[in-house]
């Protein structure tokens, strides 16, 4: 044992006690170089999810083929859906000579065999480190007639050593608009609202957005719309290119009557491009999780379009509020820890606060200082937010120390949280990505009024289930 440790780890029990101690927490938070169970993936995964939202688009990974296999099976496991993606399988010789030959041959083969309407090319860190020039390579591929001269391709640089999967989503989306959207026709608009959901792994959320916007009578394009790619109906046939945002809708995107972004941190580059460069009527809202965030979303839509919020949505709102008041006693005063992507946490915090829940530990591995400030503002706006600390750049091993030293009642986050939750002996309600140990969690929305009802249901019922499973026999009763 090295001298700088204070653990007298003579037994497993002693070692565990050390891991659970306050002293350990301090050491744990002092580490600078080692990352342990970080809740973030790398850029190309986000780029791939983005590409899946364009109808007829084949995602194309420029770099090492192992990356493509990893992105695919990570998404396969969460959605339980096929994830078609090709790569140009760069190997050691490409590391020396560059990946141009692989890209040219790969485009040709993929084009001929899989007959896509377009391809979205993005990079792995191998191609980024050797400095491959995608623009030149793709032009050379066209010149070599590997693909037709006018075949639509969008390409994005998605280095995995910058940002996280949400950065990759943003980069790919911006690239789609920059490469494949037609130039704006001055003041003329196509009368359609474009809704950008961001890195959202809930097809149920996209369906909910469509339902709400359509209820308001607003012509809508979701960009990108991976709803069907994430949740394709079983018909007995496999369709490699399910419905999504059409190429025509993508081409016409900059003529939109408006853009609404329902996440703030997963699409910030695209937002700036649309609002500041293209000067399109653009709104950005907090992910509409919970009643108030959904209210704000609908009011923003109404303001942008001049359309009133219809009575049917007011009724829906009423039902969601009813579910919240019906269940308030099960959530009020309960202490929560949560982790996940910035936008998810921002929305989820709003929801917890309006239920009287108390967020305590909020861990966001891929959160920035701007995110921390914004979330702090939300917390400061509620008496229930006083106990919370926002930890950006921290990981799930930090979270474990927090849970062991300052206990809470429940953890909210993706499946990776199950080990921390087990050690802390608290339930994990699975929200976020990836969820790989439960079925169908992605199919029901967590946004909108419907999503609020679902969250209330999941959280309150989990507490009641826990009471039933753990209470002494004499307290086991019919009513809860």
């Amino acid at each position, binding site marked *: 044992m090295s001298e700088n440790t204070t653990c007298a780890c003579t037994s*497993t029990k002693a070692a565990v006690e050390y891991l659970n101690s306050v002293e350990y927490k301090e050491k744990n938070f002092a580490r600078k170089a080692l990352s342990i169970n970080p809740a973030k993936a790398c850029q190309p995964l986000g780029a791939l999810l983005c590409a899946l939202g364009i109808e007829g688009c084949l995602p194309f990974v420029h770099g090492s083929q192992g990356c493509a296999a990893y992105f695919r099976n990570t998404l396969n496991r969460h959605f339980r859906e096929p994830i078609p993606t090709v790569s140009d399988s*760069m190997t050691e010789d490409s590391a020396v000579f560059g990946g141009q030959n692989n890209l040219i041959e790969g485009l040709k083969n993929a084009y001929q065999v899989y007959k896509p309407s377009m391809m979205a090319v993005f990079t792995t860190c191998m191609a980024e480190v050797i400095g491959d020039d995608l623009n030149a390579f793709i032009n050379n591929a066209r010149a070599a007639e590997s693909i037709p001269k006018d075949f639509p391709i969008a390409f994005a640089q998605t280095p995995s050593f910058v940002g996280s999967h949400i950065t990759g989503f943003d980069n790919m989306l911006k690239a789609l608009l920059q490469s494949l959207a037609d130039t704006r026709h001055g003041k003329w608009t196509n009368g359609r609202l474009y809704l950008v959901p961001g890195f959202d792994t809930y097809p149920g959320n996209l369906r909910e957005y469509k339902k709400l916007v359509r209820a308001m009578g607003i012509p809508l394009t979701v960009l990108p719309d991976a709803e069907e790619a994430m949740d394709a109906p079983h018909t007995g046939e496999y369709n490699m290119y399910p419905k999504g945002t059409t190429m025509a809708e993508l081409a016409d995107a900059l003529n939109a009557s408006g853009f609404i972004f329902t996440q703030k941190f997963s699409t910030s580059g695209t937002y700036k491009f649309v609002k500041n460069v293209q000067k399109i009527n653009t709104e950005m809202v907090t992910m509409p999780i919970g009643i108030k965030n959904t209210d704000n979303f609908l009011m923003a839509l109404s303001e942008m379009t001049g359309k009133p919020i219809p009575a049917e949505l007011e009724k829906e709102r009423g039902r969601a509020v009813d579910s919240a008041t019906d269940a308030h006693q099960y959530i009020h005063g309960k202490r929560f820890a949560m982790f996940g992507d910035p936008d998810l946490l921002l929305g989820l915090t709003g929801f917890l606060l309006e239920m009287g829940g108390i967020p305590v530990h909020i861990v966001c591995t891929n959160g920035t200082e701007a995110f921390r400030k914004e979330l702090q503002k939300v917390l400061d706006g509620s008496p229930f937010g006083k106990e919370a600390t926002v930890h950006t750049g921290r990981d799930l091993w930090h979270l474990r120390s927090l849970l062991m030293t300052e206990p809470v009642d429940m953890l909210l986050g993706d499946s990776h949280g199950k080990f921390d939750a087990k050690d802390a002996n608290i339930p994990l309600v699975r929200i976020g990505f990836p969820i790989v140990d439960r079925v169908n969690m992605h199919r029901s929305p967590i946004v909108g009024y419907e999503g609020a009802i679902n969250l209330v249901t999941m959280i309150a019922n989990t507490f009641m289930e826990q009471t039933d499973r753990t209470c002494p026999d004499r307290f086991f009763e019919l009513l809860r």
Partner: protein
Amino acid sequence: MAEQETPKYTPATPEMVDEVLSAYPDRAKKMRAKHITVKTEGCASCSVKSNSKTVPGLMTARGCAYAGAKGVVFGPVKDMIHISHGPVGCGYYSWGNRRNLAEGELGVNNFVPFQFTSDFSENDIVYGGDKKLEQICREVKELFPTVKGISVMSECPVGLIGDDIESVSKKMSKELDLPIVPVRCEGFRGISQSLGHHIANDAVRDHLLGKKEREEEVGPYDVSLIGDYNIGGDAWASIKILEEMGLRVRNVWTGDSTIEMLQTAHQVKLNLIHCYRSMNYICKHMEETYGIPHMEFNFFGPTKIKQSIRAIAARFDETIQEKAEAVIAKYEPMMQAVIDKYRPRLEGKKVMLYVGGLRPRHVIGAYEDLGMEVVGTGYEFAHKDDYDRTMPMMGDNTVIYDDVTAYELEEFVNRMKPDLIGSGVKEKYVFEKMGYPFRQMHSWDYSGPYHAYDGFPIFARDMDIALSSPTWGLAKAPWKKETVKEVR
């Protein structure tokens, strides 16, 4: 519920393969044709090219050297900390995804469900990651004083920016008095997971094997179980048989294993190797260097298990041989009961496989025990010696495909119409959408174990679940007119 359609199975023909490949551009067609064959009578043309580069742009299921080294070989060693050295993704995607079960206290003597990474930023790419790696090693020791060793699993950028992980490992190993193993498994090396296995085997050879001696003398029945990664508890099921035979399983490589098992594996009498592909290198090394013989065996399905038990026992004396017969006698009636239950339901069903490692050939016997026939099989990353072992096991008019592309496999299935497909998660939902019963044969579809006598009843049950699920009959809405599906 609609009646399930009876699939019209059609055996493979060389013409079928030509037809499928005709969709490719010339160069791709020429390359791919060498990797696919239909075994015909006499088997004159029975060979496939393997272990060569994947054709760019054709959807491959293959992974990379890192996946082979960290994901397969090192990842399951439970009391070591495996650092995914480079950007965050590789460690994230391989985090908990291979079902290597391990017994132990998390954070104390079991680190398998963790993801440790140096999470490279742009600065690390520009200035190099060696200093960071030193710091990481110190932090590992500080935060996990009970850890028994560290492995440094390089990701692509590490090899490209010229970091010297070997020097850092050597230096820190001395400073921390801890084995630290540098593993040069950058994803661009080689053409699949396979080179990663080899690199990892070499790293074990150079840095761990023989570096420690168990004080106890080597017993006459001491063996190592090599190439069992304890997917869903496979190794535990295999150990149970071997120990009931009277053997002492000293080491498992690497399911539920410890660093000591890697260091002291030169102190056994025999190496029993299940996954030949990923561990043959080190077995050959131990044979040459330490004179430890190795033998392949197969614990899938009662027929192969019985043969294997006898073959293993033949390497030992009568005590073991008698116990081996007793083990067979004990379990055979149980296995017969499983066969009696499931065989009538599964008899004659046709199976197509596409997996990695040992399974494309090793599971054939288990299917045959249930009366099922494997009519197509192939490997993601096999070499010639794997196919040499596979060909004799296949019947006539079966198709063998190496590094099959998504397009090829879909087209072969469309034309041959097997009853069941066994492959990976990337293939699963494609074929299930098409209405084909499917089992993941890498992860046992989150079930298992499938190895040994404990595994076979679960295997049989799972295949039956896949084939007889009433959910397949729900696909067609009753008001839809019956249409004959044309082959594309």
